[in-house]
């Protein structure tokens, strides 16, 4: 039992952090809204860094790493708010040709998520659907879809699709179940990174911003909001890391409860921290120019994918007693 990061894991996070700093500064991220959320060159750079292929065997061009490492990578991506169907493409690596290499962008949705909102419609090459019966590749040419002119999150463009066709089978029910678990944890990891970034930007703002001749972070009301943001993030971190480790290590027992708790707490950490960050930033938090709202909107979006907070609390309850 050593629940700290190995030096390899630290190095992996550091490498992806550097990639994000270099390639995904916030101006660049914002600009991706203009191109449907995905820039093909940047996408391939992420692929080259192993973001999608990480868990594939070395024979398949991967690094044979685990879900724990993938979660650490997605945490860093969430911190930087990198847009695009990252989780789906990562899940599809090894299954959909070109996904691992960044040549094909893979999106997806869960069939119980009515109405069907297809994310990144103009960026994706392949649309997958998951349901209790398996994984399916949807034939988009047969899909009636209308574009959302005004998406909640400018970095999550969407189409509303009419009834979703099943298409070609890509996996059995067991695959679908595993995708749901992996997808929940990786989305949770991304949300965890967002929660941490929100804490840091709010702390920095509160040290800088003066009102009543003092930095606002010296007022207990603000200080305690920030302390709660930090605490929520660290609790979510413990949950997400533990769930990822659990997915890699069958000897730790069935992962369902840990995974549900991880998505639940990471989703809440991100949404609650984003709301708190808005409040701490005061009027600035209500402006488009300050990044907080982009995190808030993404947090709301991601809270609806791979199970909502309510869904996951129900799952944990169902496994109790």
């Amino acid at each position, binding site marked *: 039992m050593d629940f700290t990061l190995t030096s390899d894991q630290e190095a992996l996070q550091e490498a992806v952090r550097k990639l994000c700093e270099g390639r995904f500064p916030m101006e660049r991220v914002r600009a991706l809204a203009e191109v449907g959320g995905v820039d093909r060159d940047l996408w391939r750079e992420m692929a080259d860094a192993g973001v999608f292929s990480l868990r594939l065997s070395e024979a398949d061009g991967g690094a044979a790493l685990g879900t724990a490492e993938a979660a650490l990578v997605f945490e860093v991506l969430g911190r930087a708010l990198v847009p695009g169907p990252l989780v789906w493409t990562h899940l599809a690596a090894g299954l959909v040709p070109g996904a691992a290499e960044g040549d094909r962008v893979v999106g997806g949705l869960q069939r119980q998520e009515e109405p069907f909102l297809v994310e990144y419609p103009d960026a994706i090459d392949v649309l997958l659907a998951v349901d209790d019966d398996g994984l399916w590749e949807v034939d988009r040419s047969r899909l009636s879809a209308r574009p959302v002119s005004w998406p909640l999150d400018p970095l999550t463009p969407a189409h509303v699709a009419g009834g979703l066709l099943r298409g070609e089978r890509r996996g059995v029910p067991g695959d679908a179940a595993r995708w749901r678990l992996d997808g929940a944890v990786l989305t949770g990891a991304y949300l965890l990174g967002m929660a941490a970034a929100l804490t840091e930007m709010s702390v920095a703002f509160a040290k800088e911003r*003066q009102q009543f001749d003092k930095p606002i972070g010296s007022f207990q009301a603000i200080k305690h909001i920030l302390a709660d943001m930090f605490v929520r993030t660290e609790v979510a971190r413990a949950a997400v890391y533990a769930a990822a480790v659990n997915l890699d290590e069958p000897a730790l027992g069935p992962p369902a409860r840990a995974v549900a708790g991880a998505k639940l707490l990471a989703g809440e950490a991100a949404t609650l921290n984003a709301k708190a960050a808005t409040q701490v930033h005061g009027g600035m938090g209500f402006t488009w120019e300050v990044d907080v709202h982009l995190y808030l909107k993404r947090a709301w979006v991601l809270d609806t994918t791979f199970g909502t907070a309510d869904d996951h609390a129900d799952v944990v309850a169902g496994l109790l007693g």
Partner: protein
Amino acid sequence: MDLLWTEEDERFRAELRAWIDQALPKLPAATKREDWDARRERDTTWQRMLYDAGYAGINWPADFGGRGAALSEQLVFYEEITTAGAPDVGVNFVGLLHAGPTIIAEAADDQRARHLPAILKGEEVWCQGFSEPSAGSDLASLRTRAVRDGDDYVINGQKIWTSFAQVSDYCELLVRTDPEAPKHTGITWLILPMDTPGVDVRPLRTVIGSSEFSELYLDDVRVPVANRVGAENDGWRVAMVTFSFERGTSLVSEMAEARRQLDELVKVAKVVTRGSATAWDDVGLRREIGHAAAELDALWNMVKRTVSEAARTGVPGVGASVVKLYYTELIQRIGDLALRVLDRASLSLDDVFDHSGHFVEERLRVLALTIAAGSSQIQRNIIGERILGLPR
């Protein structure tokens, strides 16, 4: 304690409703988002219609051209306007609820004669130049400087959060006239004509993507001393007169609308599918909506209490701060419930089904409510110190 409307109230309601029924169809359709000229045109047209019918300035004294309505009639007025889906004050917001009442309370007769009728008739649109980038919660630390030069003040500085500045004729402006004095005592309240040279309006994009608010850049702007309301350096007190209005009835139409929206949300919840059931079949979610409805009911009754006390004593009492703090946090929780009901449909501000986009937009809009006009943190300080008498 009596919650029945009086016969007068009911008669007023009936007349008003009849008038709205025939007036509303004559009003142009709602304007396109971001078309502020059209918005001004529509809102001021409606204001003129209200004026001609004798409903303008519902809360203004009759001596100044207002309706001088009893407080209970004001509640009826807001209820009926909201229920009918008629426009709220819109671009006339600052004129009717801030600048106008300040002018009534503090201005000279010639200033009153110049502006009050024009505001009532929808001929003058006002905006507010109070907040600054570095003066938010700590408004009194404002730095926009006004230097006396002959019969003018020469003004330099920057304002922010000025709503409808693009289509305003005048701005109620707070400036610092004595930088040496303690911060509350060196401020002056001025009437700034928006077409004065040196006034630069730069729209500000909000999280909703709208540009209702602007920044005002003021570069050697000359305003006649005659445009001052109240004494030089007495502007903080003058502005506080305005705030006592802002924190009173200004949330009433907002709350009436929230009650209507909550009923809408229940209808939506009964339609949104969730597995084999609807969102409304989720006992946990439904219970939270029921809880929020009870709170909103209570706040509405709290408004009636506050208004009744004000009618009896002439002062608004403690209710206004309580309502501001509680309502603004409640409406955000209700917005969160709406997102939970909508689930994936919350990804879109276009309607995925009936009105769904409106709930999402509202969730964004109400983010500002716990920040503007005294943040929740400031409200709790005020309640703790002014009402409960706790030490600073």
